[in-house]
């Protein structure tokens, strides 16, 4: 909630460099890696929207399924009504938000471990619906044949245009999520996390805010699901299950969940790392697992905390106090 001026010359220059790098990246990559870059961009939105849900201190296991809700919604609208991505995306987010809103009533009666398990169970129920109602959702095979849009002669099936499009959409979403977190709404979510009774004692309806975070977070991940299916072309129940959920958790935890950019760092670093050890074939899961364990052991506050640690090791400035909360 600081009134710091962010439009300094320095910041503008950094932003320009970052933008140039982001725009240039796909041109240095092979086709296969361009695909990966698109999924990585979308996954950035997945972890950032998850962060909003976790701001109140409740970790859910339904986020991956919510992404699936978005992907299925977009697919159905495309397949049956021929709607282009421009129109399916709002519905993808909206459907996930709607389901989240309905789930608030049973789920948000629980907290902590019970919420974790409850959200997992609710997610599995949704996945079973996809598997069982073969006529609508295509069973275990899921839905396929979803296409990217064409606009002004640009066919977004090509990775570079689709990457630019994803980059734009994800950036807008991140901006909104960032604004939410740094507004009074974000302050209230933090307050509920740290001391719900104290927040309630000054008029905060904690339930409403938990619901809000859950619904808005689900909206954005639903949108991410829509964005993904229009490039990948298909969606299946297994793609959006607990396996992917575990990846979301790993990205967020390894990146660090105390700052807005922690999960972003986590998903980028781990995706690049995972790619770079591809040559190790069978050893890959073992290496990946070892790195996870090491990072949790030695960097409990995540990769995001490295700069602060380095600074204190080299005695530059003083960062003895490491509040587990964003200082933005």
């Amino acid at each position, binding site marked *: *909630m600081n009134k710091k001026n962010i439009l300094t010359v320095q910041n503008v220059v950094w932003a320009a460099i970052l933008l140039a790098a982001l725009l240039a990246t796909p041109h240095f990559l092979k086709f296969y890696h361009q695909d990966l870059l698109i999924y990585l961009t979308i996954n950035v939105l997945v972890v950032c929207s998850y962060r909003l849900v976790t701001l109140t201190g409740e970790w859910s296991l339904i986020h991956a399924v919510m992404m699936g809700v978005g992907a299925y919604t977009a697919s159905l609208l495309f397949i049956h009504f021929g709607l282009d991505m421009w129109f399916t995306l709002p519905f993808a987010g909206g459907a996930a938000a709607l389901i989240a809103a309905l789930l608030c009533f049973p789920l948000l009666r629980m907290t902590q471990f019970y919420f974790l398990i409850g959200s997992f169970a609710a997610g599995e129920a949704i996945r079973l619906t996809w598997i069982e109602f073969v006529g609508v959702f295509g069973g275990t095979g899921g839905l396929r044949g979803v296409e990217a849009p064409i606009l002004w002669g640009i066919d977004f099936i090509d990775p570079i245009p689709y990457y630019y499009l994803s980059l734009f959409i994800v950036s807008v979403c991140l901006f*909104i999520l960032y*604004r*939410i977190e740094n*507004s*009074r*709404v*974000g*302050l*209230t979510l*933090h*307050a509920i996390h*740290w*001391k719900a*009774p*104290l*927040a*309630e*004692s*000054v*008029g*905060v*309806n*904690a339930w409403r805010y938990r619901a*809000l975070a859950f619904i*808005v977070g689900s909206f954005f991940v639903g949108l991410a699901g829509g964005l993904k299916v229009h490039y990948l072309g298909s969606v299946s129940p297994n793609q959006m299950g607990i396996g992917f959920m575990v990846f979301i958790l790993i990205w967020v935890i390894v990146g660090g969940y105390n700052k807005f950019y922690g999960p972003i760092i986590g998903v980028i670093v781990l995706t690049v790392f995972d790619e770079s050890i591809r040559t190790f074939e069978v050893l890959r899961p073992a290496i990946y697992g070892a790195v996870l364990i090491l990072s949790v052991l030695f960097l409990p506050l995540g990769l995001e905390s490295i700069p602060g640690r380095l600074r204190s090791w080299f005695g530059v400035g003083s960062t003895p*106090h490491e*509040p*587990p*909360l964003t200082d933005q």
Partner: protein
Amino acid sequence: MAILEIKNVTKQFGGLTALNDVSFQVEEGEIRGLIGPNGAGKSTMFKNIAGFYTPTSGNIVYRGENIEGKPPHTISEMGIVRTFQETTLFQEMTVFENALVGSHIKGRTDIFSAVLGLDQKKQEAASEKVMEVLDFMGLSDRKDQYASELPLGSQRALALSIALVSEPKIMLMDEPFAGMNPEETNHMMDLTRKVQESGITLVLVEHDMKAVMGLCHHLTVLNFGVVLAQGTPEDIRNNEKVIEAYLGGA
């Protein structure tokens, strides 16, 4: 006129009766002391008033309206705010942010205004109110420090600030003097008086008899969940039953 009336409130936890048919009235503008030995039910009384517990039976009437059983956020919105027995702060937030949470009722905003910045005026007003209270409580120099870094006295002052920023009509203070040295106690007594002079009705649960006798206009004494005596500090000091409860129980 009584601003708050406790009418025959009973609170049971399973087989244990923490409050048994308790009645008393708080006058507008006074400092009312609620005292009694450990486990007498003082904090339980506060939690019933503030909506954290629902009385098993009985009524709590605030300005003529029954409020028992309403949720905490509704009751604080009506103007009754409690502070907590243990120092309860958002330790991971700065002093300013802590107090800012206190301005929730007036400063809250919807998510669209927050994203688009349409609530700026409101937030500025909230920040002003926060700074005014922090000045009043002598905390403005420390506004950017983390709450966890404050000395005990300042932590208590901050807890009070959070409540004050919400502009309550009644403040329920649960042992604000606990663990304080004489100097801190004196400072806190001054602050408490200032709060009362600003027009806020106070109900004070406290074991520190110097503070209680020095501050309160009327006292209600609880013992094992029952009202033992009520009256001015002078009456209470000389009350046989009270002396016995305090000396005999220990």
